[in-house]
């Protein structure tokens, strides 16, 4: 009877996970999706504790002790971490999951050793695979964590790829030898464990910091697979499905993330990844710039209250005035307030921006002169600079040697977020570098203004 109820609980939990993941895929429902998944998890945990026949009530004290300890530490860590450090936190927690999977395998193996003949070879292989994957996930995640915390630097062995493949071969060789009975010493599995952990290190070490999110996502799906193996081991459906779900969804997510960053998953898998990444992200000449995607920009704006658009000559070149107006309307439909900051010399003739924006029917009331808008930037959530450069160049205020020194500019830096949309890092009319692009608040959205604005409009509908 108990088992039946537990089975039912597991069914419900499994579908809570599925629905939860689905809901996590839409901004409006994401929060509720997360809660739903958490609720499913809670049900599964307590169901297991109280209804699983093999759980001995005598061990309750240990179980609850561990639960309370883990919950307290996990909660505090998760609550204290700063927004900017979220990714490493995810990596850390992922590593914990991987370690948990490895530990389970070890204990199970111990059981297997002490009760020979209780499991099939398939059983053993699955157990070992779960352990390896868990260990790789654990050590890899820890390195990823360290890298993002900037405690660990990039590091590359001379023939990294060859070494990686060798280690993998040795691991699989040992597994075969062990399960086929060629090697019998139980300690072998600790060697396998150690090699797996080492592989995790080797795998993640050479990869550049910028690519960590992809790696974390991949390790995340690894842990999912390890969990699925655990589910197979115990014939436990909720583990199985939860694991497979994360394994498949996580892998696809990794692919999608790679795609968004113009990489292929193949590169990740053979460890060749970091090298290329470093090369292609070296756009900035001085300082570092941060890129942003149209989708992220759209989401950022969607959830903003005050948006200011700063049009410049690039808007005119791209003839993006119509789609700019469209973006304005879309944002307003989302409840944001949109204004245009018109710099007196934006463009190439007096009133250039007025002519363009009037053409696309932008309301005159939305066009603010520099002096009127400058004080407002402080309360602006997002400034979208569209093909403007000199008119937002802080050198005009800071650098007496600059040819534009003394020209009043739009103080976009005062806003919470600055998105600069232009095609490249090329200079504007005055031919000078713009330190705004290197400002920590600034993110660059590279592309032709018309094309990117259109993408923003489209993404706004999805985000």
């Amino acid at each position, binding site marked *: 009877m108990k088992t039946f109820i537990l089975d039912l609980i597991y069914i419900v939990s499994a579908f809570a996970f599925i629905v939860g993941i689905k809901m996590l895929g839409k901004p409006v429902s994401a929060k509720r999706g997360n809660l739903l998944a958490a609720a499913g998890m809670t049900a599964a945990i307590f169901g297991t504790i109280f209804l699983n026949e093999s759980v001995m009530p005598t061990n309750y004290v240990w179980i609850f002790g561990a639960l309370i300890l883990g919950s307290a530490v996990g909660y505090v860590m998760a609550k204290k971490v700063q927004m900017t450090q979220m990714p490493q936190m995810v990596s850390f927690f992922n590593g914990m999951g991987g370690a948990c999977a490895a530990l389970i395998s070890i204990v199970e193996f111990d059981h297997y050793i002490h009760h020979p003949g209780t499991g099939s070879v398939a059983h053993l292989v699955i157990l070992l695979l779960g352990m390896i994957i868990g260990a790789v996930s654990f050590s890899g995640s820890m390195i990823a964590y360290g890298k993002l915390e900037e405690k660990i630097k990039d590091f590359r062995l001379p023939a990294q790829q060859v070494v990686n493949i060798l280690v993998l071969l040795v691991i699989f060789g040992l597994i075969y030898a062990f399960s086929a009975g060629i090697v019998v010493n139980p300690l072998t599995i600790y060697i396998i464990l150690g090699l797996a952990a080492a592989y995790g290190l080797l795998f993640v070490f050479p990869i550049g910091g910028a690519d960590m999110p992809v790696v974390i996502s991949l390790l995340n799906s690894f842990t999912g697979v390890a969990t699925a193996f655990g589910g197979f081991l115990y014939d436990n459906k909720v583990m199985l499905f939860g694991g497979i779900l994360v394994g498949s969804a996580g892998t696809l997510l990794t692919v999608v993330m790679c795609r968004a960053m113009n990489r292929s998953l193949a590169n990740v898998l053979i460890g060749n990844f970091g090298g290329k990444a470093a090369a292609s992200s070296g756009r900035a000449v001085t300082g570092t710039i941060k890129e942003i995607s149209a989708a992220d920009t759209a989401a950022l704006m969607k959830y903003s209250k005050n948006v200011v658009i700063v049009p410049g000559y690039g808007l005119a070149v791209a003839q993006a005035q119509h789609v700019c107006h469209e973006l304005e309307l879309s944002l307003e439909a989302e409840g944001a307030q949109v204004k245009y900051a*018109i*710099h*007196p010399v934006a463009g190439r003739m007096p*009133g250039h921006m007025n002519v363009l924006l009037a053409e696309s029917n932008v309301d005159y009331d939305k066009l603010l*002169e520099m002096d009127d808008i400058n004080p407002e930037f402080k309360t602006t959530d997002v400034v979208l600079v569209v093909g403007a450069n000199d008119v937002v160049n802080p050198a005009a205020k800071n650098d007496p040697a600059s040819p534009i020194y003394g020209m009043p500019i739009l103080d976009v830096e005062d806003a919470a977020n600055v998105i600069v949309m232009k095609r490249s890092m090329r200079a504007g009319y005055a031919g000078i570098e713009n330190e705004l692009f290197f400002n920590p608040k600034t993110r660059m959205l590279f592309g032709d203004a018309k094309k990117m604005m259109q993408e923003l409009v489209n993404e706004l509908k999805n985000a």
Partner: protein
Amino acid sequence: MIIGSVKETRESENRVALSPAVCKQFIKSGFQCVIESGAGAAAFFSDAAYLEAGASIAGSVSEVYAKSDVICKVNPPSLDEVPLFRSGSALISFAYHLTNRPLVESVNARKIALFSMDAMPRISRAQTMDALSSQANLAGYKAVIIGANESGKIFPMLMTAAGTITPAKVLIFGAGVAGLQAIGTAKRLGAVVEVTDIRPETKEEVESLGGKFISFDTGGSVKIEGGYVKEAGDDVLARQREILKKHLAAADVVITTALVPGKKAPQLINEEMVAIMKPGSVIVDMAVEQGGNCCFSEAGRTIVRNGVKIVGQTNLPSQLASNASESYAKNIYAFLTHLATKDGFKWDMNDEITAGTLICRDGNLLK
């Protein structure tokens, strides 16, 4: 059938009733065309162009009159010209037969058939013949250009290094054909456009062109008939003037087109209202020939009152002679091919268009 056209005699009239392109069409349909030498010159249609189109050029007015079965003109002929017409021939032109009785009678006396273009019924199938519309349309555009040219301000908003120039405010009276085109043109130039009219359906029409409609309660005393204002009581006009004051005070350019067919134009801007207008502002009174919407307007003159320029230019379409003549000629073509075949008029008095436009014939005064 021979169609003739002559040089217009009205002062500063640049238009001509037939264009080379339309002559060509007529000739293709089997008609013949005779044009007075130099008739199209002011509209930049050379004699050579007419010849090329297949028309023949007549050296004198009288030659045209003598040859033609039907004379096409823009303006009604002067009384002196009437005797030159061949008796039994026909005349198509604006005639304003209601206000132009002596002319009508003299034409009728010579047994000339007179079709008045301004009497064209405003029905769907007569739209191609509707010269009032085609000319009013051009006039609406021209009024805005004149306003922009006379104003000391530019129409669009511009934010420049030398400060922000606010957009001009253009106030338009009457959203008929001319008024609507004026809205479109002023909007294009970047002005903020406000419009007043007393026909209720104009609100939507004005807004369909991006203008702001000044709504006020017109009450019951406005009578609309067939899309025209038939009558608007003095109380309505008084209320309207009151509402318009604050709009006038802010306006940079005012364009008035308000008309009530067959009546004197309503006086919508009185002395007091001009006084509250900004010095430097401009009124272009398109209703000036019907008495004007502004009390000071003088036909054919631009006067300054209280710093306000009041432009009373008449005959705006004439200033757009090429376009206006071409459009008028096309109206004539549609009209004449409806009225007649190459062998002569049909005189189909059951036809609404013929019946509506034929003023007199064979010595019978029909209207």
